[in-house]
C-alpha cells in the first residue's frame, strides 16, 4: 500500500468519525440538559472531517506529478480566513434579537456553496465536451436548483426579519403565474439536459437564473410571522443540496451529513408549523393576509382605546395577587428583558405571584423568547408555555402585555380573519389587561388587535424599556 492509499483510507475513516459526531450531537440537542454538549460534539466531528480533508489535499499534491503551485492553498486559506472571520465576528457580535436572521444568512451561504460545487463540476464537464452520465446529470441539476432556491430564499427571509424588506406579504406582480413559469423553466430545462445528455452551458445558466428568481418569488409573498417555519424549511433544503453535492463529487460525508440535516430539518419544520397550528403547505402557498383584505374588515367594530398612565398601572400591579407577563417581539427589540425582570422581582418582593406566558412563536422564532429571558436571568420555572398558562389567565388580576400583538388577538378564535386558527394566549380572560406599546401600529398580520379595544384593557403608550422603567419607579414610590 502506498502512502497516498493509506492516507485516503484514514481520511475516509476520519469522515466517518465526523458523521458519527453529527448524529450524536444532533440527538443530544433534543434535551436542554445535554444540548450544549451536543453542539460541541457536532463541532468536534466537523473539525475532524475538515482537518482530515486538508491533510488529504496536501498528501495528494505531494504525490502528484503535476505542479499545482500555491494557488489551491491560497484559495483555501484566504477563503477560510475570510469566511471564518466573517462568521465568527457576526456570530459573536449579533444581538440575540437579531439572531434568527443571522442563522438564515448562514443557511443562505451554505446553500450557495453547495450550488457552486455543482456549477464548477458542470463547467468541467462542458470543457470535456463528452456525454454526461444520467445519474451525474440529475444530481448536478438538483444541486444547482435546490442550492440556488435556498440561497436567494434565505437571503430574502433574512432581509424580512431584519426589516430591510417589508415583513408583510408582498404580492409579486403576476403572482402565482410568475412562480409557475419559473418552475416550468427549471423542469423543462432539466428534462432537456437529461434527455440530450450533452453538457449545455446555456441551458444550465437558464436553470440557474430561474431557480435563483424562484427563491425570491417563493419567499416574498410569505408573511414575517411565518418566517421561522420558512427558514427551517430552507435549512432542510440546504441539507438536501449538500447531499446532492456529495453525489456530484462522490463524497460520503457530504451525503451523510446532508441527508441527516435534510431529514431532521423537515421533521423540525413540521414540529414548528404544528406549534403554530398551521400546515407547511398552507404557509408556503398562502401566507398571512395573503387572501383578500375584505376578510379583515369583517373583524368587528373599531371601538375606542383607553389610555392609562404608569402610576395607575403601578397601583394595579402592586396590589395584585397574580400577574402574568406576556412578552413579545416589542420587548426584544427594545432590549427590555432586564427591565421586565427587574419589575417582576420588585413585585415578587411585595408578594405578588409573577409568571411569564411564552407563546410558541413569541419573538421571531420558536423558543426565541425563552433564550432572551434566560439571558436576562429570569428564573426558568417562571416561564410557562402556552398550554400551561392559558387556564391561569382567568385567575390573573393583571395581564401585562409587552410588545406582543398578533399572538394575543382574540380575532384568531373566529374564522375569517388573517390570524384565524392561530393558537393565541387567552389574555382577554384576565381581570385587567395592560398593554405597553409604542403606538397603535399593527402586528405582522397587518390587522387591528381587538384586545386593545376591550373595555378591560388600558394602553400604556411607551417604548417597552422606558415604560417598564417608569413602572418600576412608580411601584417603588408606592
Amino acid at each position: 500500500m502506498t502512502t497516498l492509499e493509506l492516507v485516503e483510507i484514514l481520511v475516509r475513516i476520519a469522515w466517518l468519525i465526523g458523521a458519527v459526531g453529527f448524529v450524536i450531537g444532533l440527538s443530544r440537542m433534543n434535551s436542554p440538559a445535554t444540548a450544549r454538549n451536543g453542539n460541541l460534539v457536532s463541532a468536534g466531528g466537523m473539525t475532524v472531517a475538515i482537518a482530515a480533508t486538508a491533510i488529504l489535499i496536501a498528501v495528494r499534491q505531494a504525490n502528484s506529478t503535476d505542479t499545482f503551485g500555491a494557488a489551491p492553498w491560497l484559495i483555501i486559506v484566504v477563503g477560510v480566513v475570510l469566511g471564518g472571520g466573517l462568521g465568527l465576528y457576526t456570530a459573536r457580535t449579533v444581538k440575540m434579537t437579531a439572531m434568527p436572521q443571522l442563522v438564515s444568512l448562514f443557511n443562505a451561504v451554505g446553500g450557495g456553496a453547495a450550488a457552486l460545487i455543482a456549477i464548477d463540476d458542470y463547467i468541467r464537464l462542458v470543457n470535456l465536451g463528452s456525454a454526461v452520465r444520467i445519474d451525474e446529470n440529475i444530481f448536478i441539476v438538483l444541486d444547482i436548483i435546490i442550492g440556488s432556491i435556498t440561497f436567494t430564499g434565505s437571503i430574502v427571509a433574512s432581509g424580512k426579519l431584519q426589516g430591510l424588506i417589508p415583513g408583510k406579504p408582498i404580492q409579486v406582480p403576476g403572482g402565482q403565474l410568475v412562480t409557475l413559469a419559473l418552475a416550468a423553466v427549471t423542469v423543462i430545462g432539466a428534462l432537456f439536459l437529461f434527455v440530450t445528455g450533452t453538457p449545455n452551458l446555456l441551458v444550465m445558466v437558464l436553470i440557474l437564473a430561474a431557480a435563483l428568481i424562484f427563491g425570491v418569488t417563493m419567499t416574498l409573498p410569505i408573511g414575517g410571522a411565518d418566517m421561522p417555519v420558512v427558514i427551517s424549511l430552507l435549512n432542510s433544503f440546504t441539507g438536501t443540496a449538500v447531499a446532492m453535492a456529495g453525489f456530484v463529487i462522490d463524497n460520503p460525508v457530504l451525503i451523510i451529513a446532508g441527508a441527516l440535516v435534510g431529514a431532521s430539518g423537515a421533521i423540525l419544520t413540521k414540529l414548528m408549523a404544528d406549534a403554530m397550528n398551521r400546515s407547511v403547505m398552507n404557509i408556503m402557498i398562502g401566507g398571512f393576509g395573503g387572501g383578500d383584505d375584505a376578510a379583515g374588515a369583517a373583524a368587528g367594530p373599531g371601538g375606542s382605546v383607553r389610555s392609562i398612565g404608569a402610576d395607575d398601572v403601578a397601583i394595579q400591579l402592586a396590589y395584585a395577587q397574580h400577574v402574568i407577563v406576556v412578552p413579545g417581539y416589542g420587548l426584544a427589540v427594545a432590549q427590555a428583558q432586564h427591565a421586565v425582570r427587574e419589575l417582576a422581582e420588585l413585585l415578587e418582593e411585595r408578594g405578588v405571584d409573577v409568571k411569564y406566558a411564552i407563546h410558541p412563536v413569541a419573538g421571531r422564532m420558536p423558543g426565541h423568547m425563552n433564550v432572551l429571558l434566560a439571558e436576562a436571568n429570569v428564573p426558568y420555572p417562571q416561564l410557562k408555555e402556552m398550554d400551561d398558562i392559558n387556564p391561569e389567565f382567568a385567575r390573573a388580576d393583571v395581564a401585562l402585555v409587552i410588545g406582543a400583538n398578533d399572538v394575543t388577538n382574540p380575532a384568531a378564535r373566529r374564522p375569517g380573519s388573517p390570524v384565524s386558527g392561530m393558537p393565541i394566549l387567552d389574555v382577554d380572560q384576565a381581570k385587567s389587561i395592560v398593554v405597553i406599546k409604542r403606538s397603535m401600529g399593527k402586528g405582522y398580520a397587518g390587522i387591528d388587535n381587538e384586545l386593545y379595544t376591550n373595555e378591560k384593557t388600558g394602553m400604556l403608550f411607551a417604548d417597552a424599556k422606558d415604560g417598564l422603567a417608569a413602572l418600576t419607579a412608580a411601584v417603588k414610590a408606592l
Partner: protein
Amino acid sequence: MSYDEINGLLTALTVFTLAILVGIAVISKVPATLHTPLMSGANSIHGIVLVGAMLIAASATEPISQVLSFVAVAFATMNVVGGYVVTDRMLQMFRKKPVAPKPATDDAEAAS
C-alpha cells in the same frame, strides 16, 4: 452505465437513504424552547459542504474554477464557524436553570 457504475451509485444511495432515516429518528419530541437552537445546530452541520469546497479548490486550474471554489470555501466556512458559535451562544443561556432569585436587589437599587 456499467455494472461498476451502478454498483457505486447504489452504495451511495444506500448511505443516503439510511442517513435520511437516522435524521428522522434523531428528532424526537423536542420542547419548543429548543426548536431554534436545534435548527441552528442542524444549520451548522450542513457546513460540511466545506469539505467539498476544499476538494474542488484543490483541483481548480481554470480561473473560473478558482473563483467559484474560492467563493464556495468562503461561504462554507462562514456557515461552519458562524453556525457553531451562534448555536453555542444560544445554548449557553440554558445552562443556569432553576436558580434562586439572584441578588437582583442590588441591580434594582443601582438602577434607580
